[in-house]
């Protein structure tokens, strides 16, 4: 399971670095960007518990990991929910995050004999009620956040949200599994083999869930980059064609349109080339016409719900 945590850490760290430009230029992307950074730190404490010695060596690394993980999940949930006008804003309040963090940090402080840094700190101390409360409240917080994320994404149409839905569903299952196993461990119910099986299931479900959510974030970034690259390629090709035919779109270089997006540049060039043909000023070769048609198809893909445009479906 260490391998899964390591994979999740690498993906999160790559997403965090790759999205720095977006975070700088687009304020609304900062929450989810910050989530990937905080999540990376949380996973770093998971794969490298030796860091505990820098904060006292009394398994405070476990508390730090859970505080960071809760914050990362909450940031993703807040980013997703704030975008939707229909979802309740209660869970996105900062006070809710603070209340969650405090609610499991306090029982942690009451755990006794927690000196030696250990990866199995919770299991070793689960007989203490403070440990049971600490871990169970943490899991309940993640369960609540993931449930809100899942509910908040109900009506979203972008395909990338499929990763978020699958991921948060796995995290919810993992949390339920862990809450059950913590109770079984604390009250020493059922045999040890069954409990170990449940513990292992948690790691698998939780980290697969995290990887899927991060993949969802990455897929938005990737789709955007791929689309811009495709449009950029078409813009260059159409510009060469337009120059050859001495065709110039009316907006070319005009004030206010110099920093145009690639899609707007392609649109203007397509319209100018179609005008050129319709005005009988010349004809495009079959290859040129194909390029124009391909570019046009990409622009069409991006128009908002063209099929539902009543005025335009006759």
């Amino acid at each position, binding site marked *: 399971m260490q391998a899964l945590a390591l994979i999740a850490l690498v993906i999160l760290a790559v997403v965090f670095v790759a999205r720095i430009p977006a975070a700088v230029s687009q304020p609304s992307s900062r929450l989810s960007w910050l989530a990937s950074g905080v999540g990376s730190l949380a996973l770093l404490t998971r794969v490298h518990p030796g860091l505990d010695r820098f904060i006292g060596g009394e398994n405070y690394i476990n508390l730090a990991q859970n505080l960071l993980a809760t914050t990362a999940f909450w940031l993703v949930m807040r980013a997703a929910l704030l975008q939707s006008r229909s979802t309740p804003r209660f869970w996105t309040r900062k006070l809710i995050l603070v209340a969650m963090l405090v609610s499991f940090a306090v029982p942690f402080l009451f755990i006794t004999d927690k000196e030696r840094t250990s990866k199995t700190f919770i299991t070793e101390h689960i007989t203490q009620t403070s440990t049971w409360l600490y871990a169970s409240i943490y899991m309940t917080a993640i369960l609540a956040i993931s449930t809100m994320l899942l509910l908040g994404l109900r009506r979203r149409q972008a395909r990338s949200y499929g990763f978020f839905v699958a991921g948060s569903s796995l995290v919810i299952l993992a949390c339920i599994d862990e809450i059950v196993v913590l109770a079984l461990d604390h009250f020493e119910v059922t045999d040890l083999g069954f409990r170990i099986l449940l513990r292992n299931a948690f790691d698998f479900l939780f980290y697969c869930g995290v990887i899927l959510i991060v993949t969802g974030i990455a897929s*938005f970034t990737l789709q955007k980059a791929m689309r811009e690259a495709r449009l950029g390629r078409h813009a260059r090709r159409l510009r060469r064609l337009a120059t050859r*035919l001495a065709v110039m779109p009316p907006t070319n270089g005009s004030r206010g349109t110099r920093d145009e997006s690639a899609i707007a540049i392609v649109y203007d060039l*397509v319209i100018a080339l179609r005008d050129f043909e319709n005005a009988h000023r010349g004809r495009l070769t079959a290859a040129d016409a194909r390029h124009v048609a391909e570019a046009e198809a990409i622009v069409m893909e991006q*128009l908002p719900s063209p099929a539902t445009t009543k005025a*335009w479906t006759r």
Partner: protein
Amino acid sequence: MSLTPSSEALWFEHADVEARTAHAFEQNRFQDDRTLDDLLEHVADLHGKPIHVDAIDDTDWETLTALWVDFPHEAQILYRSTDTRLYQMHCILHELAHIVLRHPGCNVLGDDSSLASYRGTNGLVRGRLLETGGSEDLDDADGDRRILEGEAEHLAHLLSRSLLRPRFREDEEVFG
């Protein structure tokens, strides 16, 4: 490839045209409209009467790509059914731009016989007519008409910016 260098620009361009159309775009907050339907509704509100948009199969429409006919109680925009969807949309935007800019009707629409039926109505007519670039054509072109057409074309491009955004732009802004 047969090539006729288009030495004369199809659309009139001038800094004043850009300024006027940019002002009209911003003043009416067209950037808030997300679909062609939104734009149509918005322009119909400004115009004070409903706007009907219809495709037409007339093969006589050679260099005329769209037409706005303004009747006392409604307006009609006609576009060619044979054009590609994106080009149709642009031609509709061009006619909407005329309405937004409160342009008057136009009598110089070539000799297309199909137009006679519209001229004969009690409606004002303005069309998106492409000039072939021949010297006669350009000599005939009335200066005011070229300016008005240039304005409408420029505003049509600005209006297209409201629609040309990634389908899931808000999602991409948050997670992309």
